[in-house]
């Protein structure tokens, strides 16, 4: 038999192949070696057969070689594979993007829901971010903001929990000279409206304020015109804001122009300040040196009057000084200047005034940190709802992506790569939503500004921080909403998917239900919140105040008008449509406290009582129809009334512990010893954030600043016209400016009403987004069950029963959401209502209505889809797929 080399080699190779460590490459190596060796042996003179045997012997036994290879394999297993793909494969990026875009394109409806839901969520978030940032920015434009403090009085020595920001005129200068760490100090004051005249233009200015020259150095209002060093140094100078300057002078240069105040003295314009775009708790339209108040209004004698608590005081500390230290040093400070003054002074950071302050006589138009928190929470809620939509729809439709995942895994993708791919997709969608959201933002901002009464401008295109913040927001949204889908999709087992042994019906249905429940819990919570808020607001607006405010106009009587009040009153009363006329110092919608405790008959020496007070004219009780429970009103028939008569309310009587009859009891206040002539029923002379407190009315003709005219309800416009005519005829030198009292009353709740409206709109959007998701989910489920529906119909099921079948699942979810939302909403709204002393009660129907609303909206959404599916022709549905 001839020796067949190839056959022998094949046999030899087979013996090697028994050992599985020999991979084909290794065998090829050794085979070549064998052939080389064989050739060499043959050349040495051996026969073919002997040469082959020799060569095989030299190569060695398969076992020994295999053992060596096996060692290598073990080493290799303990190491990372050299074939391991990189963490990120740039070559696949384009594929990822293509896949993402393809998915978006193939499922336009779902993508639309995903993207628009996220876009609306992001828009709401961005609006709220802008709003919160705006609230937060108050006073922070001042470069010295951290060093500036407002000084307020803590009156708890005489009255419980009472504070006031009103301080006396000499305090600022005294503080500055007594404490070296105070480097600057200013008073900031208001003294009634001022009639300001330039040529033929004349306005009653409510925004006339007074400050000391340090004001300009302390605060950073940019001076557009004028010399900052001297702008307030001349006592009769005035700084105008840009808006005011335009109002008086239009295009003319305002510097050096002379304005007449109250037809009695002149001030020269020395500067124009910009404050339009600045968020400042200190508001003003015109600013003059404080000494004008002393010279022209309250008399220079009051410059040293430590009892004249009517103005704000602001101080600026050295950079290194600590406010805490100074607060300690301020203990008992007021005693130094006024032995009977037991109040304590406290420093309040300027930046706390807008959001964190709730002091007596505080500045107007302040914000409230509570609303900042509520709105921030709302923003998070809305975004969460949008994210849940995304999660739900993506996982529900995951069956469509399963094959892709399986294939990617088979060709070597690792789970981490797939997770990154899906995160990438959700971030891509979030960024797409961001682009749309930025467009929405620009479109909605004017509307939001009207709603919020702010002048927000997004300006993200030239505000890199804001833009980065928005992008960050979108990234967080993308990661949040992509988290579950990414983990879920990447966990698919390729073998199962590709074999199709298991029909993937999307994510775990339980988890999907939990997400729907979560969304609707938030939605129901927001609906309840909205209802409670609007109920509380309407409760406050419609509560019986205890006095009449209808058909009463009021006019400011300051300056010369004050002296002419008597004659105006007489002339107006001749008008048959005028019912009554009276006057007072402050508006009955906001009667403030007065420092000190009054004296009364039988008062224990240590008794303290905070009391609100107003100075009024005859007919006050009658004009406002305040019911008297005892005694009488101020009357012209008693000559002593203007001097010694007091009228108090029931609450005051209760607190003083006076026994009936109260009338005739001695009572004293402001060093006036008198007696009580009447007791009026308790009424709300402050907004409803305040409890009814002791109140006293005293006649004081010198302090009347507002005149009230009660007119007949018929022919209001003609009455007003004829009053104006009378006014003009009297040639008073002041414009006829009036306002309706009830209008003013509504303004008390303007900020609440605004916030309520914003809350309502955003809550509605949140519910809308949740419904959008539900719509998508319902249509997905209807689509999945197309065949089932077809069969059921063929077998005789009615449309209604099919709709009911499909809706049932959602109904359970909504019911569960209500059960969870109710207690949370109850506690949250209960807590919120606690800050109102007069509050609506939480009624069960609010919850039922919310549940019904939630249910109705959800059912409507779901039924839109299920009805379509149920009504489809079974022939078509059975041909489905």
């Amino acid at each position, binding site marked *: 038999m001839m020796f067949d080399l190839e056959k022998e080699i094949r046999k030899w190779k087979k013996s090697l192949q028994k050992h599985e460590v020999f991979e084909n490459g*290794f065998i*090829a*190596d*050794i085979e*070549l*070696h064998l*052939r*080389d*060796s064989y050739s060499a042996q043959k050349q040495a003179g051996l026969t073919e057969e002997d040469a082959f045997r020799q060569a095989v*012997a*030299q*190569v*060695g*036994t398969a076992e*020994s*070689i295999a053992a*060596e*290879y096996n*060692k*290598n394999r073990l*080493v*290799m297993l303990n*190491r990372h594979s*050299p074939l391991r793909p990189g963490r990120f494969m740039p070559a696949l990026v384009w594929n990822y993007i293509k896949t993402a875009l393809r998915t978006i394109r193939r499922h336009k409806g779902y993508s639309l829901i995903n993207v628009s839901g996220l876009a609306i969520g992001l828009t709401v978030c961005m609006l709220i971010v802008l709003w919160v940032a705006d609230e937060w920015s108050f006073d922070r434009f001042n470069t010295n903001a951290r060093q500036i403090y407002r000084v307020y009085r803590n009156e708890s020595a005489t009255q419980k929990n009472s504070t006031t920001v009103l301080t006396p005129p000499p305090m600022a200068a005294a503080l500055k000279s007594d404490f070296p760490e105070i480097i600057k100090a200013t008073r900031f004051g208001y003294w009634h409206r001022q009639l300001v005249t330039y040529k033929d233009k004349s306005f009653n200015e409510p925004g006339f304020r007074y400050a000391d020259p340090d004001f300009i150095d302390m605060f950073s209002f940019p001076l557009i015109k004028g010399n900052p060093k001297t702008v307030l140094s001349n006592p009769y100078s005035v700084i105008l804001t840009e808006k005011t300057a335009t109002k008086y002078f239009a295009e003319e240069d305002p510097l050096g122009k002379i304005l007449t105040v109250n037809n009695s003295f002149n001030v020269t314009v020395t500067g124009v300040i910009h404050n339009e775009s600045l968020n400042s708790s200190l508001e003003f339209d015109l600013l003059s040196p404080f000494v004008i108040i002393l010279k022209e209004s309250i008399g220079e004698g009051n410059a040293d009057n430590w009892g004249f608590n009517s103005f704000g005081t602001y101080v600026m500390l050295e950079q290194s000084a600590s406010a805490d230290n100074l607060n300690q040093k301020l203990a008992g400070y007021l005693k130094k200047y006024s032995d009977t003054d037991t109040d304590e002074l406290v420093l309040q950071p300027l930046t706390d005034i807008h959001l964190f302050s709730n002091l007596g006589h505080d500045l107007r138009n302040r914000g409230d940190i509570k609303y900042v928190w509520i709105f921030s929470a709302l923003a998070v809620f809305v975004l969460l709802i949008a994210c849940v939509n995304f999660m739900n729809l993506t996982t529900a439709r995951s069956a469509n992506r399963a094959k892709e995942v399986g294939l990617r895994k088979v060709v070597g993708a690792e789970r981490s790569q797939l997770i990154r791919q899906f995160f990438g997709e959700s971030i891509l969608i979030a960024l797409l939503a961001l682009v749309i959201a930025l467009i929405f933002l620009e479109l909605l901002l004017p509307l939001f500004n009207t709603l919020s009464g702010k002048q927000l401008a997004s300006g993200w295109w030239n505000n890199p921080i804001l833009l980065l913040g928005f992008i960050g927001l979108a990234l967080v949204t993308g990661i949040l909403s992509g988290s579950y889908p990414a983990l879920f999709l990447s966990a698919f087992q390729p073998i199962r998917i590709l074999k199709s042994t298991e029909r993937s019906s999307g994510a775990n249905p339980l988890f999907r239900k939990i997400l729907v429940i979560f969304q609707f819990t938030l939605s129901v919570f927001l609906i309840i919140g909205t209802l409670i808020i609007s109920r509380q607001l309407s409760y406050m607006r419609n509560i019986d105040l205890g006095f009449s405010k209808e058909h009463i106009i009021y006019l400011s009587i300051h300056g010369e008008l004050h002296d002419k009040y008597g004659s105006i009153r007489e002339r107006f009363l001749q008008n048959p449509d005028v019912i009554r006329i009276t006057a007072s110092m402050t508006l009955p919608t906001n009667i403030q406290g007065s420092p000190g405790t009054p004296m009364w008959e039988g008062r224990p020496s240590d008794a303290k009582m905070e009391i609100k007070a107003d100075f009024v004219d005859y007919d006050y009780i009658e004009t406002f129809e305040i019911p008297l429970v005892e005694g009488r009103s101020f009357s012209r028939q008693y000559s002593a009334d203007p001097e010694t008569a007091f009228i108090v309310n029931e609450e005051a009587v209760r607190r003083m512990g006076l026994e009936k009859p109260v009338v005739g009891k001695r009572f004293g206040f402001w060093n006036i010893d008198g007696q009580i002539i009447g007791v009026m029923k308790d009424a709300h002379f402050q907004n409803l954030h305040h409890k009814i407190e002791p109140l006293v009315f005293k006649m004081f003709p010198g302090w009347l600043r507002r005149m009230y005219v009660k007119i007949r309800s018929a022919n209001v416009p003609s009455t007003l016209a004829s009053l104006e005519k009378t006014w003009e005829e009297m040639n008073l030198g002041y414009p006829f400016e009036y306002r309706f009292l009830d209008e003013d009353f509504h303004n008390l709740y303007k900020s609440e009403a605004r916030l309520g409206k914003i809350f309502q709109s955003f809550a509605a959007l949140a519910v809308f987004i949740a419904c959008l998701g539900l719509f998508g989910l319902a249509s997905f489920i209807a689509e999945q069950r197309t065949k089932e529906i077809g069969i059921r119909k063929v077998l005789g099921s009615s449309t209604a029963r099919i709709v009911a079948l499909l809706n049932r699942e959602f109904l359970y979810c909504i019911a569960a959401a209500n059960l969870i939302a109710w207690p949370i909403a109850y506690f949250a709204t209960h807590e919120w209502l606690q800050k109102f002393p007069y509050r609506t009660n939480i009624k069960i129907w609010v919850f039922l209505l919310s549940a019904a609303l939630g249910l109705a909206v959800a059912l409507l959404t779901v039924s839109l889809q299920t009805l379509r599916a149920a009504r489809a022709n079974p022939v078509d549905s059975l041909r489905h797929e």
Partner: protein
Amino acid sequence: MAASTRPIILAILSRGEDYGYSIIQKVKDISGGHLKWTDGMLYPVLQRMEMDDLITSKWKLSGEGRPRHYYTITEKGRKELASELVSWRNVWQALVRLAKPIPAED
């Protein structure tokens, strides 16, 4: 395998790329016929050295038309060889100093 095999292979490859059969012949020549291992055992060693990045390999067609697996020393391999040489020299010197000459075999 003997600890000496790897430095010997590295030393051979440091003179230029080579293929398996040729390397083994050279190893046999150098070791003066004292190599106790069969030829096939060298291939796992080469694989292991490749795993350790000391050498790389590629297939080439030889002049005789036969494909050959050529091995090339890497930079890491050269460093390894240098340090191996140093330590071998140290061992050798130590042995020379300590030991009496071993009588050569006849």
